[in-house]
């Protein structure tokens, strides 16, 4: 055990003190936050040059009721269009908007004409269309003598509120499942990343040791299995450290960005065209509701289980990566070929996870939550939507059993692989190696 600890310590410390690790750990959250800041700045960017627009409204539809907004200044002109066009250059206007007469109040289409010398931008056109459409709505309400309150009552937003069948069952709101899905998604992705990044880190490191020939010195002091476990645990600890630092740094940096730049991701994220502006009070209420739902989730159950799945999945996959690394030496191409069968279940699992989050009780979701190659990625994503206890227990037991078995199996391959040079590792060879005696 002492020796295992020594190996873990070395594997951990050499990686954590490496400049490339420190840079990656610190720069990734910075880059992540910078990306979001830049992205939201780009989306919130509006042309800063003001435009003066002459409006010709001969029939008096809008009655001077066009709001100046977003760098657009409207001025109602009595002069005829021909004259305005002729003196356009000296008039100080950037464009002329002509609103024709409305013949039929029930027509849903209305065409306005926009004269401009320069290029008209999509954004400007959108804004003008919105402004005119709003003004026209008011005009039509008045012209048709409609009651404003009645009109507003027509817009009903419908929300499904899930309720349990049994009396006293757990009452889940719709928000609960949405948040459960969101958290599940994040957990599934963390698992996916962990398997790939740290699994292949284990593999590269095994390959390096074999190429370096340090293994011969090492195995004359410690058992190959200790070497493999030391590496897997050491790299796993590196992974946890990195994920933990990111989990602290990313929210911290986002907060700093919000404070220093007055940037608010909730309001400035792109909403898509035509999305209704959210009332700040609604946002506030929404955040409160989300916070309370997040608080409602059984974290005391989910977090330990997440760690169980993290460890189970990590051991399962990284031991396979270690076995492949032991068999190939320095041939990265061959390593990639041999890792394909490892990568396929991981990629499949992420697709299943995306589907399973939407339908947590489907037979696909239940199967994938128990099948040990998928469960480390799929099951954490389902935990927030309260799967039955038997499903969790079976899934955890199967995963632990399989992980132990795979670590043992990989250890068998590893102990032969690291000492074998010049022989190609194939799956047929692996099968033979497993049954070799020491």
């Amino acid at each position, binding site marked *: 055990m002492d020796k295992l600890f020594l190996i873990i310590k070395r594997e951990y410390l050499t990686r954590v003190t490496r400049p490339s690790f420190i840079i990656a750990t610190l720069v990734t959250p910075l880059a992540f936050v910078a990306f979001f800041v830049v992205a939201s700045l780009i989306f919130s960017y509006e042309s800063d040059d003001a435009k003066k627009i002459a409006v010709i409204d001969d029939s008096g539809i809008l009655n001077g009721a066009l709001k100046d907004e977003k760098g657009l200044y409207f001025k109602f002109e009595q002069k005829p269009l021909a004259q305005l066009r002729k003196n356009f250059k000296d008039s100080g206007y950037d464009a002329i908007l002509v609103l024709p007469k409305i013949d039929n109040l029930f027509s849903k289409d209305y065409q306005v004409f926009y004269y401009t010398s320069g290029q008209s931008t999509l954004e400007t056109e959108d804004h003008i269309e919105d402004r005119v459409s709003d003004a026209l709505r008011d005009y039509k309400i008045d012209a048709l003598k409609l009651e404003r309150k009645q009109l507003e009552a027509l817009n009903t937003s419908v929300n499904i509120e899930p309720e349990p069948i049994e009396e006293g069952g757990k009452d889940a709101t719709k928000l609960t499942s949405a948040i459960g899905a969101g958290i599940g998604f994040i957990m599934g992705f963390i698992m996916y990343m962990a398997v790939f990044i740290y699994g292949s880190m284990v593999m590269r490191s095994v390959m390096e040791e074999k190429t370096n020939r340090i293994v011969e*010195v090492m195995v*004359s002091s410690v058992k190959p299995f200790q070497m493999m476990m030391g590496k897997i645990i050491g790299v796993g600890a590196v992974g946890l450290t990195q994920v933990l630092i990111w989990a602290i740094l990313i929210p911290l940096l986002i907060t700093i960005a919000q404070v220093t730049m007055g940037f608010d991701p909730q309001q400035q994220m792109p909403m898509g065209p035509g999305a209704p502006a959210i009332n700040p009070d609604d946002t506030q209420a929404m955040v409160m509701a989300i916070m309370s739902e997040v608080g409602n989730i059984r974290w005391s159950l989910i977090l330990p289980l997440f760690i169980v799945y993290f460890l189970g999945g990590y051991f399962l996959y990284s031991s396979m990566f270690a076995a492949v690394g032991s068999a190939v030496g320095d041939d990265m191409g061959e390593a990639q070929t041999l890792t394909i069968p490892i990568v396929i279940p991981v990629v499949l699992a992420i697709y299943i996870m995306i589907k399973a989050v939407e339908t947590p009780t489907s037979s696909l979701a239940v199967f994938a939550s128990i099948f040990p190659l998928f469960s480390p990625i799929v099951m954490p994503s389902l935990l927030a939507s309260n799967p039955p206890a038997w499903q969790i227990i079976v899934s955890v037991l199967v995963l632990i059993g399989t992980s132990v078995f795979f670590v043992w199996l990989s250890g068998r391959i590893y102990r032969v692989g690291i000492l074998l040079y010049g022989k190609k590792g194939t799956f047929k060879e692996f099968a033979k190696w497993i049954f*070799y005696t020491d």
Partner: protein
Amino acid sequence: MDLILDLQNVVKTYEKKIAVNDVSFGVPRASIFGLLGPNGAGKTSLIRIITTITRADSGKVFLDGQALNSRHPEQIGYMPEERGLYKKMKVGEQLTYLARLKGLSASDTKLALKYWMEKFEVMDWWGKKIEELSKGMQQKIQFISTVLHNPKLIILDEPFTGLDPINTNLLKDEIADLRAKGVSIIFSTHRMEQVEEICDNIVLIDQGQNILNGPVKTIRNSFKQNRFKVDFAEEWKGTLPPGFEVVDQQPDSLVVGLAEGGNSSALLQYLLGQGVQISAFNEIMPSLNEIFIQAVEKNHPQVKA
């Protein structure tokens, strides 16, 4: 005899290939023991069995009188032919790590490191990464890592490759020193002149079998062909009486084979009687190289072709 290592009927098979076929030999304590054999003879397999990296299928191995067990690696120092160190690790950290893995306590490691690094005058390299060192320097570090934990038995696989003559001598002296302190050394090499120079006993392995084993002197004696070389101070073109076979005759030298039971003094007396001036008279001892080739060819007829 006091044996540090005793192998009895050791067999190791990989799939269909028999790597070690019923090998027995003993390594006397505080001696330098040559483990010899052509490529692929099974030397590495044997070393791996002794270092407990692999286990023999059958047969027994005793280290210092005890059947080989998992605590024994701490008493063995092994320097593989293919040197290996963590390239990015600093010399001091690396040596500390390897010594600690051999079961040395942290405080003992410190002391041993100070002793050996000062002895090899490499204290300045403490903070250097292995990859910054020359090959010869790396070799020194590798040797230190082999002996740092004060092993009873040291196994050196081609320890002199890549070393300049000065460092070769330094290492030879070190090996002699270790022997004087009671450490036993197994020395595996193809360089027969080195074996002749430093080994007390050898075993010759071919095709997984022990084909020759014993003290170097005894082996050389058993292979000698009763030939003598005479160097003359002047030219001599005479002939020899019957009973002496001339193997090679040059104007200033003569190689003579003695018949069974022949007497070298009789040859010398005859030549002196001829009145020729003799500058040297030597028995031709077969080199280990010749013995090696002879023994392997005998065991392995197809090699001749």
